[in-house]
């Protein structure tokens, strides 16, 4: 009876493992690019919508504080519900992290979303310039 752990079979397995690891290592950036490309539009939209919802909420809160009124209270309540889109944003972001994207790659996607609407160089500059 031959042993199941013959040296040549172990070597074959090691070679297969190494080849697999090499393929995985080479494929990982491609996989990430694919996940980024597939999700850029949806993630970009959520970035924009959450940004808008946060701004609406901040302004509604300010208005309610400065000039309390029934309309202001209604606007504040609506803007609070509006913040639910930011939960969608968070959940989608966590899903992307789960699929292997790093914080750097998410930041890259956010940047693309912000710049997607930049129609000229000036808007890109305004996004990136340091202001004091």
């Amino acid at each position: 009876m031959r042993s199941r752990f013959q040296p040549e079979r172990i070597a074959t397995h090691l070679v297969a493992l190494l080849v697999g690891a090499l393929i995985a290592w080479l494929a990982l950036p491609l996989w990430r690019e694919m996940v980024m490309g597939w999700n850029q539009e949806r993630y970009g939209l959520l970035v924009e919508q959450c940004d808008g919802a946060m701004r609406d909420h901040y302004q509604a809160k300010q208005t309610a504080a400065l000039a309390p009124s029934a309309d202001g209270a209604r606007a504040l309540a609506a803007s609070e519900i509006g913040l639910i889109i930011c939960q969608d944003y968070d959940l989608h972001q966590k899903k992307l992290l789960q699929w292997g994207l790093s914080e750097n790659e998410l930041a890259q996607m956010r940047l693309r979303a912000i710049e997607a609407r930049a129609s000229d160089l000036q808007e890109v500059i305004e996004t990136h310039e340091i202001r004091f």
Partner: protein
Amino acid sequence: MKSVSNATLLSAALFLTACDAPPSDGSQASAEPATDTMRMAALRDAAIASGFVRAEALAIPVDPARRDAGRLIFASTKMSLNQSISCRDCHLNEFGSTDGLPNAVGAGAVGHGAARMANSEGPILPRNVLPFWGRGSKGFTTFFWDGKVSVEDGKVVSQFGDRAPSGDPMVVAAHLPSVELREMIADTPTVRDTLVTEDVDAARTVQDELARRFADDAEIGPRLAAAYRLPAGKLAFGHVADALAAFIRDEFRIRPTRLEAFVFDRGQISRTELAGGLLFYGRGRCSFCHSGPYFSDFDFHAVAFPQAGFGKNGFGIDEGRYNVTLDPADRFRFRTPPLYNLSSTGPYSHSGSVVRVEDAIIAHFDPLRLIDTKDMSIRERADLYSRLGPASREPLPSALTDAEVRSIAAFLRMLDFKGPS
């Protein structure tokens, strides 16, 4: 070998899951029941905070005898001085109590639906027929597109001035169509010469004649007299209008909806409807104006809908509430329409210019998308700019994606219910 196949299947499944990203424009259309308890609770709370109540809380009981007499009056052409049109001709069950047309077609028209507009001689009226759902129920106090009958400080305000025929705005509203030229009275030279005087006495002359007709009617007269415990000779138009109001109030009362079941009885809601509801009360800001038990604040707002037809003020212009108050701030403002049974009451807007609910929603925040300005005359474009001004000062929704608009429409369909057949 088996483990290799399993691994392959697992990889494929994982890959497909990764690729199964939601549509890029925002939300997923899904009829699957929602399970997100936080969001469902938020929607329930928002609906109640915005004034949503059970249907039974809105109903006002009516006298069955008066309602039954009103049913006959509703279907009778005797309500028209020329006997050429009944209330039923423009308020049909098959169109959710409207006529299914952009603009109403008045006295003298024949047929229903598209045939009424295509084949008849009747005059085209400047506005879209309003549905009757909830009219005259508790708190429903502002009537018609421009609110020409309303209640202020507990008093009915209408074109009758201080001679309002009733303290009930529904009954006062029931007095008006029968004296609207071209709506229920054919515009003939005789009518113009003798009745078009814009005073209450001219209206009374017409309505005294209508009351006589109903009193003399072999079927309606005795029922009406019995309902009011009067001899037929003592019946006045006030009784006719009151019976008509009783019928409308009962026949078109709000019934329980799927939204009611969701909010008060823990009923199901789909994921799309839930998303739409949260947009309605949240980023869509719909509930700023579509609030209260009828999804209307009964106030007046401007939305730059396309204008269809000649318009109340002529040449494609309808200045809305301004026609009632003559206050320039009211130009192009219309009463917020209630939203019950929206699916069956199209087309939408004061001139019926929008066929789809989705387009009616889009008109609130992206009106230019519905209009081809190149096809318009300079005058029409100038009028459009006038409408855009007040509309832009309304609490506009966030820019909604098409999927989000569809989800709001799905949510609004939760307000549908089966009315009378």
